[in-house]
């Protein structure tokens, strides 16, 4: 590496910052933007980055790992179980049929059959990174095609493991030797012990996720240092990936399992929003490195061959997918999307190709050719999406509206309750008792833990953060109940909600009059002082103990509250002038005076009792 890391980082970041907005502007989607950026800065373009593109791709593959972790977080185990038919049926058949068809084609073109078989298996894989990113960006994940594509990709991720195991058996060339990128520590062990280790590793991830992580996250959350929480989240994903690689499993698959295990955890939303930016950055890096790794020299040398391979691979894969889509009863438009979205060859192919060369299954020229072809198929995918969207779908009448299926992946509730302390928990419990779906967010990890133990679904996190609010379903909710302890946080949350989710009706708790003023100033119609109602109930009981009639005391308290709230709104409007002249203490006194003056007792007694007062009747009868 000749350049400094800093310079490289600047080159990559600048390329992304320039090309991605440009591509989005032109309606090409971010993935194509990153790929173009890679091509421009790569050896074939400006030459700003060179051969280290491959190394960077390995680093950036961590983006794929994080993405699958996030996908797993969104998928609760029950939902995964529901998807078992498409995963095994659709995914299994796709890999098998594509591998056989492409392998046969390679064999017909003159490759020896073991090499042809390996080629078929390798090319059967599709790109999780490109497809999921693009489907998410276009909001197509919940569609039938999106779910089917996801199932197939998931099966492929699982299939990588047996493929890695089978490939060495197909060796025909002398092994290339050298460091094996995916050599696992277990290579020397007998098969059964290896199997045991694999099971043990997966079991460890499940147990760790289910029981081990919660206390760890709680302890970290208690430190109130957000960056430590982020570090812990990244450590978790990285650690799982490393563990999986050690036992020879796909790191992405391991991360996916870890995600699924944590899908029910209270830290789900926090994890999601903390890790998401890293996923975006690393995936971008990954796409750039794919773009940079396209060997334009090789392509220029054999343009016909490369084009032929690219065309054949994509056509064969699309046909297989189309056929399967028909068998699994996808509508025409959905099937088109499904077939075209998965027609490329994925990032696993790079891994498998280098693995094949090292194990003497493929020779270097074939591998080089295939690598170039794979990169081109990936680059063509966003283009295919565009063609499908602009030219094919409009010709088909049956376009399915992409409504989310009945089992939405996340729980979508009408009400978000922020803060589940002594105030929020009463509101939350009351709503639940009335069968109103609530998503609860709280920033106190101890409390979250206790509430979870008694079976209340609470998520840990700072609700005033946009990403967390979004993850909690603010886009779909109708009400936001703010019951935070800190007035500053409440105001922050109000601002965030106003800015990003203006449709949300906000109900907010105020600690005292001053808080209430601030919140009223912010233009909130629903402000609740936490002590007002309880104090009045106490006042009512005091009156009753003094011998007043209960109904009179109750009505009197309600009237007092109405007067008080009206006075509060009026005072909120004028208080700023006074603030400049009086000290806080004097202002309070004045307010109190004003309050008392507005509550002259005989006035409201007249209000409520006139109808039951026989005085005027007596006068009329006697007068």
């Amino acid at each position, binding site marked *: 590496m000749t350049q400094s890391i800093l310079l490289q980082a600047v080159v990559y970041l600048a390329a992304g910052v320039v090309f991605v907005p440009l591509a989005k502007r032109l309606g090409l989607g971010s993935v194509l933007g990153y790929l173009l950026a890679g091509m421009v800065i790569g050896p074939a373009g400006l030459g700003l980055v060179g051969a280290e593109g491959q190394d960077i791709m390995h680093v950036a593959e961590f983006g794929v790992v994080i993405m699958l972790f996030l996908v797993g977080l969104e998928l609760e185990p029950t939902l995964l179980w529901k998807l078992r038919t498409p995963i095994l049926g659709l995914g299994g058949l796709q890999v098998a049929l594509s591998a056989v068809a492409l392998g046969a084609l390679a064999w017909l073109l003159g490759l020896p059959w073991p090499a042809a078989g390996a080629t078929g298996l390798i090319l059967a894989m599709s790109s999780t990174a490109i497809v999921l990113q693009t489907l998410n960006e276009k909001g197509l994940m919940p569609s039938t095609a999106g779910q089917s594509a996801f199932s197939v990709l998931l099966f492929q991720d699982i299939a990588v493991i047996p493929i890695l195991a089978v490939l060495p058996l197909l060796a025909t060339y002398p092994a290339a030797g050298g460091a094996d990128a995916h050599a696992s520590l277990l290579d020397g062990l007998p098969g059964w012990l290896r199997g045991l280790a694999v099971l043990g590793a997966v079991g460890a991830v499940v147990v760790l996720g289910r029981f081990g992580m919660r206390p760890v996250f709680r302890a970290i959350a208690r430190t109130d240092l957000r960056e430590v929480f982020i570090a812990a989240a990244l450590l978790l994903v990285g650690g799982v990936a490393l563990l999986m690689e050690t036992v020879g499993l796909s790191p992405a698959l391991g991360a996916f399992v870890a995600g699924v295990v944590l899908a029910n955890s209270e830290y789900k939303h926090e994890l999601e929003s903390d890790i998401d930016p890293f996923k975006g950055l690393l995936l971008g890096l990954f796409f750039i490195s794919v773009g940079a790794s396209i060997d334009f020299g090789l392509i220029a040398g054999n343009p016909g061959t490369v084009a032929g391979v690219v065309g054949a691979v994509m056509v064969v894969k699309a046909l297989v997918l189309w056929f399967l889509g028909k068998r699994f009863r996808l509508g025409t438009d959905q099937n088109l999307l499904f077939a075209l979205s998965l027609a490329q060859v994925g990032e696993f192919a790079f891994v498998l190709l280098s693995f094949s060369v090292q194990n003497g299954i493929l020779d270097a020229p074939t591998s080089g050719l295939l690598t170039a072809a794979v990169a081109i198929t990936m680059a063509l995918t966003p283009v295919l999406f565009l063609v499908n969207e602009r030219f094919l779908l409009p010709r088909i009448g049956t376009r399915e509206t992409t409504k989310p299926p009945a089992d939405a992946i996340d729980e979508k509730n009408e009400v978000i309750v922020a803060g589940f302390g002594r105030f929020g928990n009463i509101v939350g419990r009351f709503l639940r008792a009335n069968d109103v779906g609530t998503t609860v967010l709280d920033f106190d990890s101890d409390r979250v833990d206790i509430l979870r133990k008694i079976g209340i679904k609470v998520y840990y996190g700072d609700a005033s953060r946009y990403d967390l609010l979004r993850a909690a379903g603010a886009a779909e909710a109708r009400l936001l109940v703010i019951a935070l302890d800190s007035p500053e946080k409440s105001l922050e949350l109000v601002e965030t909600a106003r800015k990003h989710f203006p449709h949300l009706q906000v109900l907010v708790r105020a600690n005292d009059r001053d808080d209430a003023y601030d919140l009223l100033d912010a233009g909130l119609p629903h402000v609740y002082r936490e002590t007002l109602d309880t104090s009045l109930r106490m006042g009512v009981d005091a009156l009753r103990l003094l011998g007043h009639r209960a109904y009179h005391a109750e009505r009197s308290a309600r009237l007092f509250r109405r007067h008080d709230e009206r006075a509060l709104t009026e005072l909120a409007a004028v208080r700023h002038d006074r603030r400049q002249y009086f000290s806080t203490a004097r202002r309070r006194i004045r307010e109190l005076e004003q309050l008392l003056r507005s509550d002259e007792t005989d006035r409201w007694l007249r209000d409520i009792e*006139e109808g*039951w007062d026989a005085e*005027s009747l007596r006068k009329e009868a006697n007068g």
Partner: protein
Amino acid sequence: MSGVLIQFAHPALEKSRVNRVLLAAAQEVPGVTVNDLYEAYPDFDVDVDREQELLLRHDFILLHHPFYWYSAPAMVKQWEDLVLEHGWAYGRDGNALTGKHLMNIITTGGRAEAYQPEGHNRFTIRQFLVPFEQTARLCKMSYLPPFVVHGTHRLDGAGIEAAAERYRALLTQLAAGLVPTDHTPDVLPTELLPRP
């Protein structure tokens, strides 16, 4: 000025099949104001000023409620107690409501036959409604014969829709300022009715 004011009182509208449809039908008719009392005053603190203001603005006052215990739900009584003040609605100087019309819109679970001298309930609807009739008279209003939907427990969707249609027709007529004569086929012949 000939607006129609519906003073609607149902403590559990969410459980009512018939009144929900009737209320929806009423809200469609132009010139009709619906005042949902239980919705406005869940704490029974009737806003007297607001209610008197509403009464002044309308000519036809319709008390629309289920026929609980041969009368109205508690809210209607609370409303009468607080709003119909001495010196305003009645008494020597109480002339605010003079010349207006009062009417009950009621739904009963029992069938029309039950509200006959020989029937299960032994008295007619008109007899049960005598306190309202006299209230109207005391407030110098005219009392119109009640609009009744009988046998709500047995009404099917079509029956409810027919009742709503009947209600809509009545409201349209009132909104046009036309005072109805006798529109309920199930009330007794006039000679049996108690005369004020």
